[in-house]
């Protein structure tokens, strides 16, 4: 027997994204913390928001594993691509 999925509460996801965006703005312009910490937290929040969109609006959370793999494969490639290009600058 397959597990049936219920439709997610899209308005709740929207509210979640809105709150995270406000948190990002507050973090970027109001919070007196170090620049590196700010950078890390902002990137974390951005990835969090992007994951919410992919999982719930693009329905990756409810797709079969093979389609999830198709969606996830470019991500490590993207990281390798950027790191390889950055290594040109470092060395």
């Amino acid at each position: 027997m397959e597990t049936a999925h219920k439709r997610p509460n899209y308005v709740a996801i929207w509210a979640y994204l809105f709150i995270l965006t406000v948190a990002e703005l507050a973090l970027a312009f109001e919070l007196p913390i170090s620049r590196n910490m700010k950078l890390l937290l902002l990137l974390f929040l951005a990835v969090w928001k992007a994951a919410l969109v992919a999982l719930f609006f693009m329905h990756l959370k409810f797709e079969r594993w093979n389609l999830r793999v198709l969606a996830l494969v470019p991500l490590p490639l993207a990281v390798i691509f950027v790191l390889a290009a950055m290594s040109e600058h470092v060395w």
Partner: protein
Amino acid sequence: MTHATVDVMRPPYPTERGLDVYNTKLGMWVFLASEVMFFTALIGSYIILRFGAPGEWAKPGIVLNIPITAVNTFLLICSSVTMVKAYATIADGEGHFFRLRPGARLSERLDFGVKFWMLATIVIGASFVSIQVYEYLHLVHRGFLPSGVREGSELAELVANGTLPAATMGLYGSSFYTMTGFHGFHVTCGVVSMAYLYFTKTLRGKYSQQDYRGIETIGLYWHFVDLVWIILFTIVYLI
């Protein structure tokens, strides 16, 4: 004994064997995978240019109009919700709109259906592009060009008094307009595609609970564009 369960997240039409995905959707996912690499090239170049730049990089808050872009970000997030509501409405065969009062019956819901949600997405998407055009005009007026800072402009004065770094403004201008410009182009393509589907299919009632492939596929593209903007907004405007 097996139980047949209705899964609202699964489409009712035939899919490719093994993958369980119909062709149009699979094609869109493959295209989006290639788009990830396209935007990685742009964002990666920006990171390398910025952190390998010969000197300080301008603070985004001094050059760019953050409040108006924050509003634009909010608009794009709203458009993702309206898009997914259009999809859910047609897939479920019922209205996804607010109830007139708490506890109201389904028949009492104010339901405009898929036509309303698609039109809302198109209008909000077009608003995003319009605000981006306004932002560009405003930036050019202040003297921020893809080639750097225009002589005699407001920003040129900030460069002259040391508020903005002279050495990296050209790199900043070219990377900013390239990244946001390509994203704006993608949003424009999405709005045009949705308008096409709206007039040729949605208004003519060609989508049904049995076939809503067009809406699901364009929805995937639209959410991806939103996702890219979430990353771009943070990297370009906030960091």
